[in-house]
C-alpha cells in the first residue's frame, strides 16, 4: 500500500469550495442563445406599416391593425403588425424582409399564460418585458432579401449635358425596368401621397409582367400625361415609398416613363378604353396646360364635346414653356397631347379669354366652363432698379427658349431665386454658354426646387450664393443699359419662432455686389385674374377662385357653371396636382351635367 492511497480520498475535499462544472438543479433560468429567435420586437416609430412582413409570412401569422395613437400620414399607413403566436413558426422571414428594419426578435421564448388570446399582440405598441432587449435575432449585417440600391439611370455626363439641350435622362432598358420593378413590394403606401392617387403598385406590376398595354391603361385611369409626368413629376410617391425607409426608394417616376415610352402613339387606342357615346353637352376649358387637358381628356371620355382655349401658340402650358427640353423633350409632351386631341378634343390655340373672347360668352355658349390658367405673371424683385432693362423674368426666358428665340443673356448671368424655375433658367443659361450665379435668400436646404435639380445645376457649373438678400439693381458703370450691378446683403439665418423655419436676417455692413449681363428674376409667379369679371359670379379670395371639393366655383344663374383648378387654385403648384384637379373637376362637371350631383 502506498501512502497516496490513504491521502487520495481527502485530497478531493480541496475542490469542495470551487465553482462546479455541472449545472445546478432545479434549473431556474433558461436563457436563450444570443441570436435565438424569440418573441418579436418592433420599433414602432421606424415601422411604416407597409405589411411586407404580413405578405411574406409563410403561416399567415401576421395581421396589420390600426395602432393606438398612430394616424395614417404620408409614408406611414398608421397600421402595425400583430403577430399570432398560435401560427408563428419563428422562421424570422418577417425580420429578414422588413424594409425599414424595424422588426426584430428578442431571445425570450418562455411565456406562460392560461388565456390563449394573449399570445397575439402588436410588438412595439403593446409593451412586453422583452422590449428593447439587446439579445435576439437581428437581420445580419449586409444580408438583405430586398435590393436596397436602385437600378442606376443612364444619364448624360454633366460636361456633355451642358453642351446641348439633349435629354439628360436616357430612360431604362427593358432589363433595367424589370429589375427596378422587382424592388417594389406592392404595399401601396405611395398611392395616398400621389395627388392623383395613381395605381402605382398596379402599373409597376405591369412592368414586371411585361404587359405594357395594361400598364398604359392603369396610367390613363388617373393621369393622361404619363410621358411628361414620367420625366418631370415632383414624385412625392417616392418620398412615401416603403423601400425608401431602408434604401433607395423605387424609381416610380422612371417606371411610369418606361411604360409610356414603350407604346407607340398609334397603338394607344388599342390599349386604352373608348369614350362614352356623345352626350350632346359642350364644355369649355380655359388653358391647355396639364390641368386643363386632363379635364379635357376625362370629359371627352364621358362623351362631352370639349373645346380648350389656349392663349399661346402651342398647348402644354408650363410643361412646354416652363420646363426646358433637356428635362422634357417636346416630342414626349406632344405624344401626351396628341392622344388627347385624337379623341376629338379641340384646342383653339392663340385665343386669349378676356381679350379675344369674354368668359361670359363661354358661359352662354357652353354647358360648363373649367378655368385652368395657372400662374403666368412673374413676381418682380421688389428692390430699387427692378425695372432695369437687364432684369429679365425667369418664366419669360424659359418661354423664349421654347420658342427658339435668341435669348441674348450675355456671358455673366445671375439667377435670383431657389425654385425649379430658377434652376431651369440657370441651366438654360449655362447651355447658352454663360457663367451663372444662383443667388438665394435662404440656404440650399431651404430651396423649394427639387433636390435633383439643385444638384444638377451645381454639377453643370452654376455657382450657388446662399443667404443673399437682394438690395438693389444699378446700371453698371461704363455699360449703361448693357450690364447691371446686382447688390445684395449677406444674411444670417435666425430662428425667430420655435418650430418655424429660420428667417434670413441681413448682416449689417455685409453688402456685396456683382456685375452681370443679365439678371433673371425667378422668385415666383402669380395668377392673372383680369379675365374674370364680377358679373361672372366667380368668388375670389386672396387672388384665388374659391372652389368646392369638385373644383366648382359657381353655378350662379346667368350662365354655365364655372369650375377651376390647377396652380390657379391649389397650394402644391405642380403638374400632377393640376392633373388631379382636372380629373376631379371632370367628375364634378359630369355629375352636374347629368344631374347626378345636384
Amino acid at each position, binding site marked *: 500500500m502506498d501512502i497516496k492511497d490513504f491521502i487520495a480520498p481527502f485530497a478531493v475535499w480541496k475542490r469542495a469550495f470551487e465553482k462546479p462544472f455541472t449545472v445546478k438543479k432545479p434549473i431556474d433560468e433558461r436563457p436563450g442563445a444570443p441570436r435565438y429567435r424569440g418573441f418579436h420586437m418592433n420599433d414602432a416609430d421606424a415601422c411604416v406599416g407597409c405589411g411586407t412582413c404580413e405578405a411574406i409570412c409563410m403561416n399567415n401569422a401576421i395581421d396589420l391593425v390600426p395602432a393606438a395613437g398612430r*394616424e395614417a400620414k404620408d409614408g406611414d399607413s*398608421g397600421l402595425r403588425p400583430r403577430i*399570432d403566436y398560435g401560427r408563428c413558426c419563428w422562421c424570422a422571414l418577417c425580420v429578414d424582409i422588413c424594409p425599414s428594419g424595424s422588426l426584430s426578435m428578442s431571445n425570450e421564448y418562455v411565456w406562460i399564460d392560461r388565456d390563449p388570446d394573449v399570445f397575439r399582440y402588436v410588438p412595439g405598441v403593446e409593451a412586453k418585458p422583452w422590449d428593447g432587449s439587446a439579445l435576439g435575432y437581428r437581420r445580419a449585417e449586409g444580408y438583405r432579401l430586398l435590393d436596397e440600391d436602385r437600378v442606376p439611370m443612364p444619364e448624360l455626363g454633366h460636361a456633355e449635358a451642358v453642351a446641348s439641350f439633349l435629354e439628360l435622362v436616357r430612360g431604362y432598358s427593358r432589363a433595367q425596368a424589370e429589375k427596378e420593378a422587382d424592388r417594389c413590394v406592392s404595399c401601396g403606401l405611395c398611392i395616398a401621397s400621389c395627388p392623383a392617387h395613381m395605381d402605382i403598385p398596379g402599373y409597376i406590376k405591369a412592368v414586371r409582367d411585361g404587359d405594357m398595354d395594361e400598364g398604359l391603361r392603369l396610367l390613363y385611369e388617373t393621369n393622361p400625361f404619363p410621358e411628361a409626368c414620367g420625366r418631370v413629376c415632383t414624385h412625392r410617391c417616392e418620398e412615401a415609398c416603403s423601400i425608401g425607409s431602408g434604401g433607395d426608394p423605387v424609381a416610380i417616376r422612371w417606371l411610369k416613363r418606361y411604360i409610356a415610352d414603350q407604346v407607340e402613339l398609334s397603338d394607344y387606342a388599342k390599349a386604352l378604353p373608348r369614350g362614352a357615346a356623345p352626350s350632346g353637352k359642350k364644355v369649355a376649358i380655359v388653358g391647355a396646360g396639364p390641368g386643363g387637358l386632363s379635364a379635357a381628356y376625362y370629359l371627352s371620355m364621358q362623351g362631352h364635346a370639349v373645346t380648350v382655349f389656349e392663349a399661346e401658340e402651342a398647348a402644354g402650358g408650363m410643361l412646354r414653356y416652363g420646363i426646358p427640353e433637356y428635362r422634357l423633350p417636346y416630342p414626349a409632351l406632344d405624344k401626351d397631347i396628341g392622344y388627347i386631341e385624337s379623341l376629338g378634343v379641340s384646342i383653339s390655340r392663340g385665343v386669349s379669354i378676356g381679350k379675344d373672347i369674354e368668359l361670359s360668352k363661354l358661359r352662354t355658349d357652353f354647358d360648363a366652363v373649367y378655368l385652368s390658367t395657372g400662374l403666368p405673371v412673374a413676381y418682380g424683385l421688389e428692390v430699387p432698379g427692378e425695372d432695369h432693362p437687364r432684369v429679365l423674368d425667369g418664366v419669360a426666358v424659359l418661354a423664349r427658349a421654347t420658342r427658339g428665340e435668341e435669348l441674348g443673356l450675355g456671358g455673366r448671368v445671375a439667377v435670383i431665386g431657389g425654385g425649379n424655375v430658377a434652376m431651369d433658367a440657370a441651366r438654360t443659361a449655362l447651355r447658352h454658354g454663360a457663367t451663372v450665379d444662383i443667388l438665394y435668400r435662404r440656404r440650399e436646404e431651404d430651396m423649394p426646387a427639387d433636390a435633383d435639380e439643385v444638384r444638377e445645376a451645381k454639377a453643370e457649373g452654376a455657382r450657388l450664393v446662399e443667404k443673399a438678400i437682394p438690395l438693389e439693381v444699378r446700371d453698371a458703370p461704363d455699360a449703361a443699359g448693357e450690364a447691371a450691378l446686382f447688390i445684395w446683403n449677406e444674411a444670417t439665418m435666425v430662428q425667430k419662432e420655435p418650430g418655424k423655419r429660420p428667417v434670413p436676417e441681413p448682416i449689417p455692413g455685409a453688402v456685396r455686389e456683382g456685375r452681370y449681363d443679365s439678371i433673371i428674376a425667378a422668385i415666383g409667379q402669380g395668377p392673372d385674374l383680369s379675365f374674370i369679371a364680377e358679373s361672372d359670379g366667380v368668388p375670389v379670395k386672396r387672388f384665388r377662385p374659391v372652389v368646392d371639393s369638385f373644383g366648382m366655383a359657381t353655378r350662379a344663374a346667368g350662365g354655365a357653371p364655372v369650375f377651376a383648378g390647377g396652380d390657379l387654385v391649389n397650394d402644391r403648384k405642380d403638374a400632377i396636382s393640376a392633373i388631379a384637379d382636372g380629373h376631379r373637376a371632370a367628375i364634378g362637371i359630369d355629375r352636374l351635367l347629368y344631374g347626378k350631383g345636384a
Partner: protein
Amino acid sequence: MNELAKELAGRYGARGWHDIRKDLASVEVDAIRIRDVMAYLRDEAGYGHLSFMTAIDNIERGAFTLSYALRDHDARRGLIVHADVDRAEPTVDSIHLLWGQAWTYQREMREWFGIDFPGSPRVDEEFVLEGWEGPPMMRRDFDSLAYSDATYAERPGRVTHDPASHMREKLYPEAAQ
C-alpha cells in the same frame, strides 16, 4: 490535392474540383458511385471522418444535391462531395456501413426531403417531426401557408387591413365614391 482530383476523375468520373479554401475543396460525382467514392476516400485518401451530410433542393434542375463533408484530421483538410440525385425518384446507396453515424443523417434526410437510403437502419422512422403527415417540408415546393391553412384552425377575432385601402379611407375618403 490535384493528385486526388485526377485519381477521383480517373477511377470514378469525378469532376468540378473546386478549391474553396486552401484547406477545403469540393468535387462532384454521380450518385451511383457514391459508396465507392466514399470507401476510397476513407480507406485510401485519408478522409477518415464524416463530419456531416445534408441535401439541397435544386428544384430548378430537378435534383436533390447530396453533400458529404469529409475531414482528413492528419492533413488538416476537408473535402465536400456533391452528388445529384433525380428529384422524381430520390434513392441513394446508404453509407452507414462506412460510417456508423451516417444512418442518423440519412433518417433525417428521409424525413425532411423524402430521399430514400435503402438498408439504412430505422430510415423510415420518425426523426423529429412526430405525427407529421404532410409532404417532406424541406422540399422547396412545400407550401407552408397552404399547409397551415389546411391543418390549423383560424383563431376567431383576427382581422387585417390593406395599407393602401386603409390610407384611402383615412386620408382621401372622397376617392372611394
